[in-house]
């Protein structure tokens, strides 16, 4: 806990977990998709499912998908704004076994890509992303986070981490997940310093790297 988190954050009410945290979940969804979302299916679990309307959780997630911050007054009007911008959304109930009570699973479509993100709002506006495109992850979005899909082969991790080290960026935490041996895998790297554009480009050019995106601290 941080003193400025105690007298803070500055946010649109009414609930840090059901509103501010929900905005952050939507923002992560947008970053993973990497383009303007055109269609969104949002599945809500637990307390999110039961109380989303009265807490404005729906408006908050859509606001995040549109790229708004937790203190942006446009959160109130986000459903209308989504309509104007051509984002079609749907909120659906879901029961996810053993998931945190405030969990959302988002299926997102842009013009060229599709993303699937699961995350929960764990209190005080903090979030935990638990799944990206079918890969189990644990991302808090408190640190700059680099997410790199890559071919599961020897040396892939070493190449990426050495580029990061070369640019003087320190790795705080990292993990690697794969769906099956030798197929595509996902590196999640949380760093102490922000990852600049040049470093990011260099990583994406490495052999065996199939994409990548950055989630800045939210």
């Amino acid at each position: 806990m941080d003193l400025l988190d105690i007298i803070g954050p500055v946010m649109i009410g009414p609930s840090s977990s059901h509103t501010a945290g929900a905005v952050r979940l939507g923002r992560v969804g947008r970053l993973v998709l990497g383009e303007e979302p055109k269609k969104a299916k949002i599945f809500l679990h637990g307390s999110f499912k039961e109380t989303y309307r009265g807490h404005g959780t729906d408006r908050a997630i859509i606001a995040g998908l549109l790229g708004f911050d937790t203190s942006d007054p446009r959160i109130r009007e986000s459903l209308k704004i989504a309509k104007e911008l051509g984002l079609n959304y749907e909120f659906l109930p879901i029961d996810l076994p053993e998931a945190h009570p405030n969990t959302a699973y988002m299926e997102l479509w842009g013009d060229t890509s599709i993303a699937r993100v699961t995350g929960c709002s764990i209190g005080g506006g903090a979030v935990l992303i638990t799944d990206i495109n079918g890969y189990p992850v644990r991302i808090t979005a408190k640190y700059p986070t680099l997410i790199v899909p890559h071919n599961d082969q020897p040396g892939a991790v070493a190449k990426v981490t050495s580029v990061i080290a070369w640019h003087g960026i320190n790795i705080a935490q990292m993990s690697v997940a794969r769906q099956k041996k030798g197929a595509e895998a996902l590196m999640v790297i949380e760093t102490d310093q922000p990852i600049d554009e040049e470093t990011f480009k260099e990583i994406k050019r490495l052999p065996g790297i199939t994409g990548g995106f950055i989630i800045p601290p939210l």
Partner: protein
Amino acid sequence: MYLESIEQLIKIAKENGQTLGRMALILEAKDREVPEEQLLNIMRERLQVMQSAVTEGLQGNRSVGGLVGGQALKYQAWFNSGKSLASGVFGKAITYALAVSEANASMGLIVAAPTAGSAGVIPGVLLSIMEEYEIPEEKVIEGLYAAGAVGLVIAYKASLSGAQGGCQAECGSAAAMAAVAATELLGGSPEQAAHAGAIALKGMLGLVCDPVAGLVEVPCVKRNVSAAVQALAAVDLALAGITSAIPLDEVIGAMGEIGRELPLSLKETAQGGLAATPTGKALAQKIFGGKEEKNGENN
């Protein structure tokens, strides 16, 4: 900044001849390796958001769930008529606490202090004292650091979340934080400030979190008023030289213990207390009786 106890902060503040608020600011700046000026500016912005939330709440907007709205406006009119029981700081604090809580419930911009559900308490107490006693802005900003330091100790020793500790952890903590800050604004010593915090929190111990329909509306908005008034009374007692037999650190410890022992039904699950009354259940049914949502259907 890491802070283990209020006692520790009092000791450091006294050694350095500072108020708790100023000392918390100095320690925080040292810890973050930034100039104090930068931290003052961040908190100045938050103070301004608290002030704008009062203005917003006094516009009388309905809440998202539709259970609250317009109460601050109604009370302000009563207060201004001169007929209200509460006068001066007390009447203003009630007005402001209501206003900020209603702004929160209607998706207004607020400072979670320590949470969104208890966001009305600190502005209610500090802004009313600031106005009535013409306290300079910088002093109030330091007061917010004192409040924040108390919140840090509570987060460490107990909890600031209704889901973990009941409403005592949200509105109770806010009352303790506000009382400590306000006592210093009115010239009380660090010890007196801690006594005020202890007295305020003792009055909120055991308070359950039982929101109707799970929303931050009923009883949250009016509980912010209860906590603000509780805090002001505690400040007055402490300034009169009345002490708390149990020191603030131990009251915080007790609050954490009580929070752990509270049943789940009374910790923000909307399963017990006011949420489980016939009227509470009927209101929940009224709000959530609708169907699923798509573009164009429910907006």
